[in-house]
């Protein structure tokens, strides 16, 4: 880490990683995004390609088969941003297993890391996700209704979760719940456990990632399902998730900005490009300014997290700012293209629908 107050120079590895992820995102995400959105399924073979890219095994220790990269919220934020520039929906799908891995590294214990992390280093895709959000009007992240109680050596889990990415067929789920009389806790739940029911969800955006709602009815868990030593740092988990969501917003808004800039420079009305009109030029400039602020707030919070500092407030501010402006940029993207923006031929309406989720997601991605 540099001693300078304000140095945004990327390391060589970060630059090379960005280059690779950006190319991946353009070819494997942006290109098939529209067809995938229409069909509401992930393109065939996509998660195998993500496995080849090596996203999830980066932070896993070498002894367990991973790449042993030092855990870096900054690098994670950059990757989330670049993936979301390809497609927000698929980015969320690719980051869900990484969020599971990161949370296990962050808050799990050694035997859990040894048991589960090698599954992300093999040849086969392991679908993992975090079930956090709950289906009610007044959902408050710090007051979970999903409950766990001790039962002999193990636990019994009850409750409902919603908007779980890859929820329909995830093999491993980290379910965040309130442990009776003890506070928030996280449980590693095998997808095969009895009492776990999954229901597909249909949403206006994020249509490609097989989002599901879960109902947990008297799911019996062994003692070792409890993550770490039982004390789950919900605040840290939420703050890291917020950084992930901010980065996803930044990436998609960058896609919007790039698209509207090119479109409006080429679109001719009254004999000249429409960017010659102040009403259009100012709108694009505003997107660029807001996007820059979103990115800087996100990077600052991630850099503080990376240094081990208290980044709670910074992450919270970034999340609120990013959520507001991502939705605004989404709608302005549609507006700038006029009638074309409303039309499914152009991607801006899809980005608008996806960006609408930024204000709603809380805790789906942990960087």
């Amino acid at each position: 880490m540099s001693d300078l107050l304000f140095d945004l120079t990327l390391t060589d590895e970060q630059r090379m990683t960005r280059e690779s992820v950006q190319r991946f995102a353009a070819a494997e995400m942006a290109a098939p995004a529209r067809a995938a959105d229409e069909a509401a399924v992930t393109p065939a073979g996509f998660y195998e390609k993500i496995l080849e890219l090596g996203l999830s095994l980066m932070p896993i220790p070498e002894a367990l088969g991973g790449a042993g990269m030092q855990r870096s919220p900054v690098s994670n934020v950059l990757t989330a941003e670049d993936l979301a520039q390809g497609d927000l929906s698929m980015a969320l799908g690719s980051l869900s297993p990484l969020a599971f891995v990161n949370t296990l590294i962050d808050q799990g214990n050694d035997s859990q890391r040894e048991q589960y992390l090698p599954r992300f280093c093999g040849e086969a895709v392991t679908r993992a996700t975090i079930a956090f959000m709950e289906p009610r009007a007044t959902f408050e992240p710090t007051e979970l209704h999903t409950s766990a109680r001790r039962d002999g050596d193990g636990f019994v889990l009850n409750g409902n979760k919603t908007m779980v990415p890859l929820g329909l067929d995830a093999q491993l789920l980290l379910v965040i719940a309130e442990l009776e009389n003890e506070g928030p806790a996280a449980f590693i739940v095998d997808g095969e456990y009895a009492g776990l029911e999954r229901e597909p969800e249909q949403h206006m955006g994020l249509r490609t990632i097989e989002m599901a709602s879960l109902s947990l009815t008297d799911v019996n868990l062994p003692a070792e399902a409890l993550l770490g030593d039982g004390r789950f740092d919900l605040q840290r988990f939420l703050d890291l998730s917020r950084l992930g969501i901010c980065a996803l917003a930044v990436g998609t808004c960058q896609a919007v900005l790039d698209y509207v800039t090119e479109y409006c420079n080429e679109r001719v009305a009254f004999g000249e490009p429409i960017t010659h009109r102040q009403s259009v030029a100012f709108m694009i400039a505003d997107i660029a300014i807001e996007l820059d602020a979103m990115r800087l707030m996100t990077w600052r919070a991630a850099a503080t997290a990376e240094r081990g500092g208290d980044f709670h407030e910074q992450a919270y501010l970034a999340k609120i700012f990013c959520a507001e402006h991502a939705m605004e940029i989404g709608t302005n993207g549609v507006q700038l293209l006029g009638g074309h923006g409303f039309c499914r031929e152009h991607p801006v309406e899809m980005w608008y629908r996806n960006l609408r989720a930024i204000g709603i997601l809380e805790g789906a991605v942990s960087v």
Partner: protein
Amino acid sequence: MKVLVAVKRVVDYNVKVRAKADGSDVDLNNVKMAINPFCEIAVEEAIRLREAGVATEVIAVSIGDKSCQEQIRTSLALGADRGIQVETEGAVEPLVVAKLLKGVIEKEQPQLVILGKQSIDGDNNQTGQMLGALTNMPQGTFASELVVDGDKITVTREVDGGLQTLSLNLPAIVTTDLRLNEPRYASLPNIMKAKKKQMDVYSPADLGVEPKAHLTTLKVEPPPERKAGIMVASVEELVDKLKNEAKVIS
């Protein structure tokens, strides 16, 4: 079989380059740089040969100042085994590049040398051919297919109006065309591993070469702006204009 691949650091192909105001050169300030696309194809081909068990070692070499180490690292992340930087200052002409590469070849004794057919900045398309002449090695330029068979290689070349197939004795020089392969993206773990791979730095003097300039750039200027087109009302008018104004048909 040892394979040597040359890689060049150039302006990224997505960048719209601008001439400097004084016309002395292209403005490279704050411009995104990348590995030359043809060189990337060369790296990919060499790695495929190693994956197929034909090549035993792939060495990526680049010539330039310290910044070109980034492109060597990219090649290492793509799968090359080790890297060599020949440290030079300022622009280096194709003949000097070829002489320096000859020096590296003498040190490393590769059986196969793969280069891009040209770099997208200078568009010279000279280095591979000059290297062939200097080393007295056979050359297969503009390769769209490369097959190794014992101590020979078969190179399919893209030539005007069709394909030409050559058989060359090893050691040989091959320059790549666009359709030879589609390069992979470096996986993230391989980017990490690249950091640990060996990279040697040589000076031109180490290779017995004194870089000399044979060419002087007089002026760099952007292409003239295209005039706006016109809409024609009918096919007849179009044909008339093509015949009598543009004089492209008779």
